[in-house]
């Protein structure tokens, strides 16, 4: 089962996850990252790397976040690959606190 980035990434975009991906399957727009589920080898290395636990294995997706499965699959292939850590969004720390991390 592939891994999915959810809306918890929005307003954060910490991008720590991309440095742990062994197959460079993260793509991104200005808002957040997305996983290309064809490339993902399902290793889970990215899950603990995210400071706000925005990434879930498909079977672990909370019910209110199921839509992100399709959104990741559709968006990722249209966006550039992100392989290096970038500067988080200015709202990242506030969003992290709001999410309880």
């Amino acid at each position, binding site marked *: 089962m592939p891994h999915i980035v959810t809306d918890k990434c929005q307003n954060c975009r910490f991008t720590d996850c991309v440095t742990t991906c062994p*197959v460079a399957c993260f793509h991104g727009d200005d808002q957040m990252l997305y996983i290309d589920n064809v490339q993902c080898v399902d290793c889970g290395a990215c899950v603990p790397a995210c400071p706000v636990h925005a990434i879930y294995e498909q079977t672990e997706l909370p019910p209110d976040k199921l839509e992100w499965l399709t959104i990741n699959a559709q968006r990722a292939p249209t966006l550039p690959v992100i392989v*290096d850590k970038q500067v988080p969004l200015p709202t990242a720390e506030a969003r992290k606190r709001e999410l309880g*991390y």
Partner: protein
Amino acid sequence: MNSGIDTASLGTSGNPLRVAIVGSGPSGFYAAEALFKSPLSVRVDMLERLPVPFGLVRYGVAPDHPKLKQPTMIFDKIAQSPDFTFLGNVTVGRDVGVEQLRGTHHAILFACGAESDRRLGLPNEDLPGSHTATEFVGWYNGHPDYRDRSFDLSQEVAVVIGQGNVAIDVARILAKPIDELRGTDMAEHALAALAGSRVRDIHIIGRRGPAQASFTFKELRELGELVGCATLVSESDLHLNSASLAELENKNNFNAAKNVEILQSWTTHCATAASKRIWFHFMQSPVGIVGTGRLERIILERNRLTDSALGQLAQGTGEMVDLNCGLLFRSIGYRGLPLPGVPFDPARGVFPSTAGRIDGMPGVYAAGWIKRGPSGIIGTNRADAVATVQSLLADLPHLDSRPKSGAAGLFATLARLNSQVLSYGDWRRIDAEERRRGAVVGKPREKIPRVSDMLAVAATALQGSRNCGVDEL
């Protein structure tokens, strides 16, 4: 003094930064990737003691987890860089010394992993029937070092000591129906032996509780999905003290919470219908290995946890339990091996370093398990290698800036030893031969498990291409 060639700045085309990477597993390849991404002119020469690359991706990842081997496609792309040279079948510390490498390269980056095991420290640890998980994993994965190991699979009860993903791999390979392994790249000698296995009960033992186990929850969950195998744990072993409950409340301890949830779902499983059983035992430490001539049983001491949340330690209670078993695999962690000329921390089994810089050795670096110890998975080592390369590149002004001979200098030394150095092209020939042999028997590849045979395939292919050349003339 004013020679333009001699003073070309380090990292420019006239004086490329030459880095020797020792080891060709994930950390080595991800370090090479990070070096090639820098704006500098960089040459990477990767030395590998085996004839073939990829380290634990080839020889550690379980054969029934083929997706986790896909990083080799990334490694293959990295190796295609014209600035990359692979030198297989070269052992640093034997064929070439660290001081020699310092002469031929501006920087050395050790990514040689953790090739040995932590020991339990018990008498009888090497009694027939008692093995390391490393031996077993290397054996079923066709690693040349372990080709001739044998495991008495006529035994019905096996014990695995350890709480990590390697312990789970060992248990799963012992428990999985053989027909589900036949289509994998498991070595033929292992498939043949496992086909006759009589192992029915596999006990996984941990000194601390379920909340402290370091299994990745996905790996643990997979055990519960094996056909014809029950997963069992007693309710008393799943008791959580208040500190453990506090640990599980920590949002960053998500994996442990999942592990406990999975284990709790197994207390109610019925064992009767299953032909094999995997038992989990927590809060127990092996204190004795007993047998006359061969392993017969182990003695376990029950533990309790002391100290506070996220730092709980196992302490013996004095209460002993006997467990009869014919096979024992210890899987309590890997250790790196020392290398002449490099500082070594014998307690942790690593080359001591700060931010990837090996202590007291300017220009010498470490990445991956030889730096951090054996934790994390393939991707963890990518982030780790990137961090070490950042240190290396930041040190550029302090490195010896004189031009270095790099691989050419190494080849000159190695030629005098008259040893066969394998190139990446040689690996491609071995790879093609392994795939060809695998296709014949319906497997993705049949690994060549002996170094001499690998060298022969590389040499034969070379001979063949020469003959072709002659024929064409």
